């Protein structure tokens, strides 16, 4: 799948959770991706190594 699209989606999720503060936002972003993303999407995002991800989304990647 288009990694740019997946990166954009992860950043968008993170931006909407950001208001909760960094720690909570990281956890919420990771949980959201676990709950709603197909495994191949998660895998591909993880394999991209965080390139293009904003800090909260990048930190969430480590929790997946």
């Amino acid at each position: 799948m288009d990694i740019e699209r997946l990166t954009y989606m992860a950043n968008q999720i993170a931006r909407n959770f950001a208001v909760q503060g960094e720690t909570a936002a990281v956890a919420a972003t990771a949980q959201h991706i676990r709950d709603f993303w197909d495994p191949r999407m998660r895998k591909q995002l993880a394999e991209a190594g965080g390139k293009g991800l904003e800090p909260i989304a990048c930190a969430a990647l480590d929790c997946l």
Partner: protein
Amino acid sequence: MGYEPQADFGTPEVHSDVSVTLTIDGRSVTVPQGTSVMRAAAECGGQIPKLCASDNLEAFGSCRMCLVEVDGMRGTPASCTTPVAQDMVVHTQTPRLEKLRRGVMELYISDHPLDCLTCSANNLCELQDTAAQVGLRDVRYGYKGASHLDLEADTSNPYFDFDPSKCIACSRCVRACDEVQGTFALTIEGRGFGSKVSAGQAGDDFLSSECVSCGACVQACPTATLQEKAVTQIGKPERAVVTTCAYCGVGCTFRAEMRGEQLVRMVPWKDGKANHGHSCVKGRFAWGYANHRDRITTPMIRESIDQPWREVSWDEALEFTAARLTAIKARHGARALGGITSSRCTNEETFLVQKLVRAGFGSNNVDTCARVCHSPTGYGLKTTFGTSAGTQDFDSVMQADVILVIGANPTDAHPVFASRMKKRLRQGAKLIVIDPRRIDLVRMPHVEAAHHLPLQPGTNVAVLTAMAHVIVTEGLTDAAFIRERCDWDEYQDWARFVSDMKHSPEVLEAVTRVPAADLRKAARLYATSGNAAIYYGLGVTEHSQGSSTVMAIANLAMATGNIGRAGVGVNPLRGQNNVQGACDMGSFPHELSGYRHISDAATRALFEDDWGIALDPEPGLRIPNMLDAALDGSFRAIYIQGEDILQSDPNTHHVAAGLKAMELVIVHDLFLNETASYAHVFLPGSTFLEKDGTFTNAERRIQLVRKVMEPANGLEDWQVTQALANAMGLDWQYRHPSEIMDEIARLTPTFSGVSFARLDAEGSMQWPVNDEHPAGSPIMHEAAFVRGKGKFVVTDYVPSDERTGPRFPLLLTTGRILSQYNVGAQTRRTENVVWHEEDLLEIHPVDAENRGLKSGDWARLASRTGETTLRVEVTDRVAPGVVYTTFHHPATQANVVTTEYSDWATNCPEYKVTAVQMSPSNGPTDWQETYASWSAKSRRIAAEPAE
């Protein structure tokens, strides 16, 4: 079953805690105080003659047929306008009354064409019945006096005729238009003998008037003055079957009135709890698509999409399909397969499609059209309240004191509910409209919004946060409700957030373009006026912050204590007839029926035990993800039931590319829709008239769909899915949809009390229906939220990434129109095209003038995604900088220009915000012409080989 008209008690039902007992023709009867004598008589089996009375209209007292005598009362009062009184003694049949009634009837008949035997209403005519009832034998005045018999009929409306020569000026049509529909299109013109029914202004006919063709006047007419053309052409119905409409999420119930296997007319069912005997132009009249010449009734297959279709037997089609699905699964794994359930199909059919995907294909790649409409409702309301559904029944609106409509256009998209809402507004409830367009509700006959906040598209969250700021900082919250019912700590976090000055209306005005003073007044009105109810639609959900907006709405309702009783609540107005049901049935890739996550081992075990197969514990792909995955080769085959994603989903080019990349596209539909241009298998579908099942409407009301004719294709849709499942080696043995519902009830706690037998006996039920709520749940969260404590969620405004700029300075928002429905596959194949034969683009006069455009001109509409052309309508309904169009016609393909920006939580597309530019054009774009050519080519059906 023979044909019987619906019972008519003459005047509306009255609700009162006080009962009154009286005697009518020697029979004792007890009724609620305030009931009319006419209704009391009808309730004890009597029949007082009447012409101007009907129980869906207020008493009028003009026809003088319903006169009665009352002991101790002078004269002969009209029973429709005379309320009952304790110990009243009424006589409905006396020599004096008989003489009076016959005399009045003589006058009516002296000015009525005596063509009963050839009249379309013969044996369906209340005038004829009443003449017989009063024993009319002679007309002493003769028939040679002045009359109305030469008046010309108005046949302009495509569905009904108006023949004034048969009119008795009872005003039932005028009152139905006023009281039931709320359009006020009809009037009685002239006085005395010159009185006549008139539509619109002088010179108008029905078609050119404000009439919205809801048909309430036709239903109200006691003669053949207003008559369905179909009755004239086909004849009197012979039987009637109650079923549920397949258009919008209101879920009107109708009597399908039949003559043999032919549908004569759809008449709204007076006992229907969603519509109370009312309808709109689509439900009542726009069913002609069922027999349209475009309907495909034979299965078809082809090896590749550049070939013509080949008609084959069901066996060959299913064998072809199953073999390819099995082969793709063997080569690429289960996760390469998926399906889309239909919000137009029944709960049972939807349940089977998701079951086929999960248990047959072996993946969770199942999604539904709610992905592109109300998926944010599911996410937002589950997060805040604990369940993915609206909180109220429709009747609740009649107890609202203030109604906030945001991102919805009920008079166009949910017209029957809109009529109820307008009735409440005429009774004095206040209205707030938050919408970029000046929708009809903002100002129409006898309805005017107290506040219209014409926000900049994409700023819903900012507007709602500013309203919350006013409510919290001005001390207008319901602290007792919040402390008792909600998480107090979360509330405090939210209150601190919204109280920040940066969220004040004055600061946010720069973003929202809503005058701060107006917003403050609207917030105060919402918070302080008694029962406050919020109704919303796709103008809320189809944004990059759709889910945040739903949660912001929920926050407002909780903060003001407007949850858990009649007259309040959070009410999503669902687009398609069974969007709610499709979501309930486990159509989303991450959850099983009843909104339980697929990762929950206990829930999964329940299904695994019942179905005898292990389920994938991981969430599957959503529709846009499926298309993305198709392009990288990891998603190869899709089964699409009753959905046209090529026309309905955003960025048409991307959808087409995704479909084209797949090895197998199976379209199961009534017509060769736009998506079918990319399909390899076409399985013909059945209409709602040809199947049994249930639909669930926007108020969680489950209602029976009853088969009134045999499927033209030979199979109901659930049978097709079952046949495909069995061709893939599953062993499904459902004999009737009721057995599927039994399985749903067995596996879904909120449906555990639902069965066809109960639905048949009770008419409808609103889930949850279970041991805790044995009679169903008209209103949710009454004592506590489903999740326990209501959850306040801080919703920060995050601007859309779709921005205007020098190249694309205008914002496009899309929507629908009254006469058309969704992608128009059904309504474009009816006479409704009279009102809307093409998509038009609304543009403000200033923007139009700057571009040299005037109404009727062709214009090029371009975005970063694509371009199309369509005709322009210059109007100040839209604000400067905003343009609007509908998406009903494939020739326009409005979604060629919409983008792939979507809701952060659910990927619901951001249809409501697209940066565009407009410029004059002289005709269709190259793309439109190419598409039209491709579309025609892809619909070719190979001729049968010669014997």
